[in-house]
């Protein structure tokens, strides 16, 4: 991916895996909400193979590893266990500072907005931390 270019992934049909969501909740101190996914659960979808491959490719080209710089989740409605959703992802490469911006939009299958998520990954050269 070139600097300032944008890679679009999706639309992809996604669904909460109840067992995985329960485990995600346990590992993030969020037990107790049995039919709604933790608000950070979409992180699971942002680690999907096609997203992972895009991040890995950008890191390899920059001889860097990704360092999670910031993250946001904003919701119009809760993400339920028993529903299908549509996820659209845009990955942008930024040059100064070198980083990847991952923007995701989650909608219902009917197109109603559900959530917006953004991850910023700083690309850190092997052997050094960012200044």
């Amino acid at each position: 991916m070139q600097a300032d270019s944008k890679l679009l992934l999706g639309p992809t049909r996604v669904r909460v895996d109840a067992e995985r969501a329960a485990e995600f909740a346990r590992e993030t101190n969020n037990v107790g909400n049995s039919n709604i996914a933790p608000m950070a659960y979409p992180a699971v979808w942002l680690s999907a193979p096609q997203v992972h491959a895009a991040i890995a490719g950008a890191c390899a080209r920059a001889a860097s590893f990704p360092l999670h710089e910031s993250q946001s989740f904003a919701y119009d409605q809760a993400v339920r266990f028993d529903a299908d959703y549509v996820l659209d992802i845009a990955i942008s490469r930024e040059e100064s500072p070198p980083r990847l911006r991952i923007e995701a939009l989650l909608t219902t299958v009917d197109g109603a907005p559900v959530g917006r998520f953004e991850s910023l990954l700083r690309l850190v050269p092997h052997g050094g931390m960012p200044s």
Partner: protein
Amino acid sequence: MREQGATGLPAVGERLPEMAIGPFDADALARYAKVSGDDNPIHLDDALAASVGLAAPPVQGMKLLAAFESMLRSWRKDLIVTRLSGTFVQPALRGEKVTLSGRVMRSSTQDGVLVRLHAHAAARAPAIIAEATLRPLSNGIRT
């Protein structure tokens, strides 16, 4: 006793009860990596962490950020979190206890309740500086 305005919303300046999480060991970081799909080796590889000057692998920032949701829910069950965002300022390292804290910065029926959040580990600087917006269940997000 918590001071509230006439709306029943929390007062600006109210501090949330602190919540301690961790310390997280290597197994905990590995379990989170597995369930989240975040297989960044910096969280699991002591040598890689050392190569960037860290005394131990850092805890996944998302694992810590996500824990704020629990603190916010415990604080006010009549409010629902509609937005959570955070900047990962300083690594919280494996083996360190992390303290989550928060303070109400804005409290409005129209714009919701804005809470500034911090996660502190052993370092003086916060590990995470975050914000959350909460709204009354009656006019929050559809659940």
